[in-house]
């Protein structure tokens, strides 16, 4: 009994020595390697650093050796998870790509998964947890409007760069956080959806009179409808609202809404129903011959996986607003990012990337560019404050093309696509055809002006 014990202690000592020695060597190596900022696989050459920032390397903060942690705070549970899982997929894909190309200034990206949870309290709690316990460098994801409003002040308080995807409510930057510092939004917001639809109607169907709406009964649905009606009535003064339905989120049975809408005999129906709600609605609507009786149907498709729009559910000729990204545009030939993103996404996940997946790309790209930009200028690894300052007013790329980031309200902007549903033999689901892009200047309120005030100030 005693002999093995002895050997055990000796082995232990041997191991301990080995571990300590390795630690010392590795530690020394990292210490020697990192301070000069040159030996790690850095995309920005060290030469640039010394040229643009004299003395920067001497006093500059070294590039930390630990990975950059990106918290993906989004719906991993509940009915929204169907759509938001694509954010996680895109994040994994992009992190692998950036890491294989040497990371951000040599720092690898590490993803931290965090569920938004069932209500606003948990969302705020989980956000704090990401920042304070997981010590993430960036938080991104789709939070939904109510959570987004609650997290905004916390984000500014904790000073952690945060980029919302979707989370489209106007109130975030118009009311709650009008002068954001750490908070950004990498998605066109709901004013742009509603106004672009109204502009599209004015352009192509200027003789509509009777308009009805079917929208989810919460802030997003209410705000979108209000802005759509305000804009449409400005553009086409003859328009009158004949019926508005307010099904709660997650409604499965829309039969009564369909009957009531048909009874009002509208020329155009506008809806921001999304995810499985819009699919259930359309399926039942087809059963009632709804789309044969309603000449024009506009839906903001912001929040859906495109494969959910199957051909038996969605007839041809309906208009869909795809927020800021549709996977068929721009073509791969003219935009290489799209050429990599879409096929790779499909290869891995057997689905085509949705709007949020596209937004995630631009969010991480904006962060990466900001870090590299500050480093190139100062020779120091940037602080959070420097990163957000560099991000504001800059631009980035995504599969949708170039995107600008407004300096004043940190809103990412890109043209708003609207297309017509089409049954194509090349895809098992319905695709959008005749895509038309409404420019951000036309459909987004200028910074500092509230959307409704802006719409009301139009002179036509």
């Amino acid at each position, binding site marked *: 009994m005693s002999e093995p014990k002895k050997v055990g202690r000796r082995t232990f000592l041997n191991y301990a020595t080995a571990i300590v020695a390795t630690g010392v060597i590795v530690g020394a190596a990292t210490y020697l390697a990192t301070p000069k900022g040159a030996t790690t696989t850095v995309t920005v050459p060290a030469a640039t650093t010394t040229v643009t920032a004299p003395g920067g390397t001497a006093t500059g903060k070294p590039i930390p050796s630990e990975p950059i942690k990106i918290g993906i705070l989004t719906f991993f549970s*509940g009915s929204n998870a169907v759509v938001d899982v694509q954010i996680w997929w895109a994040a994994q894909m992009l992190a692998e790509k950036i890491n294989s190309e040497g990371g951000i200034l040599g720092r690898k990206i590490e993803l931290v998964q965090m569920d938004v949870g069932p209500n606003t309290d948990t969302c705020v709690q989980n956000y704090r947890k990401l920042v304070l316990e997981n010590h993430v460098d960036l938080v991104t994801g789709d939070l939904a409007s109510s959570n987004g409003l609650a997290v905004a002040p916390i984000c500014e308080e904790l000073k952690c760069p945060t980029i919302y995807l979707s989370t489209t409510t106007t109130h975030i930057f118009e009311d709650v956080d009008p002068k954001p510092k750490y908070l950004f939004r990498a998605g066109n917001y709901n004013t742009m959806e509603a106004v672009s639809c109204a502009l599209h109607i004015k352009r192509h169907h200027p003789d509509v009179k009777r308009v009805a709406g079917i929208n989810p009964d919460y802030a997003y649905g209410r705000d979108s409808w209000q802005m759509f009606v305000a804009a449409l009535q400005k553009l086409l003064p003859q328009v009158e609202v004949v019926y508005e339905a307010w099904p709660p989120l*997650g409604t499965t049975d829309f039969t009564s809404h369909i009957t009531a809408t048909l009874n009002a005999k509208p020329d155009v129906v506008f809806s921001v129903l999304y995810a499985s709600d819009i*699919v259930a609605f359309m*399926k*039942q609507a087809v059963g*009632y*011959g709804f789309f044969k009786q309603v000449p024009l149907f506009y839906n903001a498709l912001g929040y859906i996986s495109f494969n959910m729009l199957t051909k038996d559910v969605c007839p041809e000729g309906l208009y869909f607003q795809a927020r800021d990204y549709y996977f068929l545009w721009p073509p791969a030939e003219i935009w290489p990012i799209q050429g990599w993103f879409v096929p790779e996404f499909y290869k891995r996940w057997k689905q085509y990337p949705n709007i949020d997946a596209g937004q995630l790309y631009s969010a991480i790209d904006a962060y990466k560019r900001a870090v590299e930009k500050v480093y190139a200028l100062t020779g120091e690894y940037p602080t959070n404050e420097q990163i957000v300052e560099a991000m504001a007013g800059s631009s980035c790329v995504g599969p949708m093309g170039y995107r600008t980031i407004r300096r004043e309200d940190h809103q990412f902007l890109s043209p708003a696509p609207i297309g017509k549903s089409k049954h194509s033999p090349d895809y098992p689901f319905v695709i959008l055809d005749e895509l038309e892009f409404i420019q951000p200047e036309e459909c987004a309120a200028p910074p500092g002006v509230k959307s409704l005030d802006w719409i009301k100030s139009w002179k036509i």
Partner: protein
Amino acid sequence: MIPTTLIFYFLNGLFYASYLFLVASGLTIILGILNVLNLAHGSFYSFGAYVAAFIATLFLNNGLPTPSLFMALFMAALLIGLMGSGVEFSLKPLYKRRQEYQLLFTFALSFIFEDLIKLIWGFNPWTCPNLFAYMGAVNILGQFYPSYDMFVIFIGFVSYLFIWFFFYHTRTGNLARAVAFDKEMSSALGVNVSSLYTKIFFIGAFFAGLGGALILPAINAIPGMGSDALGFAFVIIVIGGLGSVKGAFVGSLIVGMVRAVGIALFPEIELGLIFTVLVIVLILKPQGLFGKRFE
């Protein structure tokens, strides 16, 4: 034109009432006879939908014709019935304890079931679209109404007749009412209460599962659908009177009609209206419309 619209509102109300009745009836039967408020009842409904989608997909992938999907729906309901018996079996040790324990137990089960659904079927909506399209639509005075919705209404009525027949004209049904009236006395007179409880749970779960399976072709099965249905089932059985099948039937019709007409006339307060009815009933008749012991 107005009469057509009225017919449609009426049919929509019946449609909504039909599948909610299937959920509410099981809930009220279990509450009335076992005195267990089964918070996992919504999960039977959602499992019914998911299992039906699973079996239907299996059928279609094996080249079975579309009408065979009716069989798939029924099979799903039977499986959910068995699942209900399983739940009852796990509840047995708790009957001697206070009601709160059963309540918490079924509450816990409802969460476990919800997670199980996500684990097994993921987050994508599941459906069985073929049946809905296959049955087409009927023309009612120039307007289309989906035939499948008619079928759901029909099954709703048949189910009520079946439940009524079961409790008043079969031996097991009569015994169940006796047990609901006085459990100790029935037991003393030789009724096997334990096996009766299992059967009752089977029936309750079967109808909830049938509700989920039946509605599936017209909707999408999504995570969380069970808790919504459970919420309305509660409203229905409180309006109708706890433990009363007749109450559940009338309650479903009231909720269905109020919703259909409410959406047309007062779209702003769609949900509020249903709960207003609940409040009015509770003020005027706190025990519900048909509230007594199980009868």
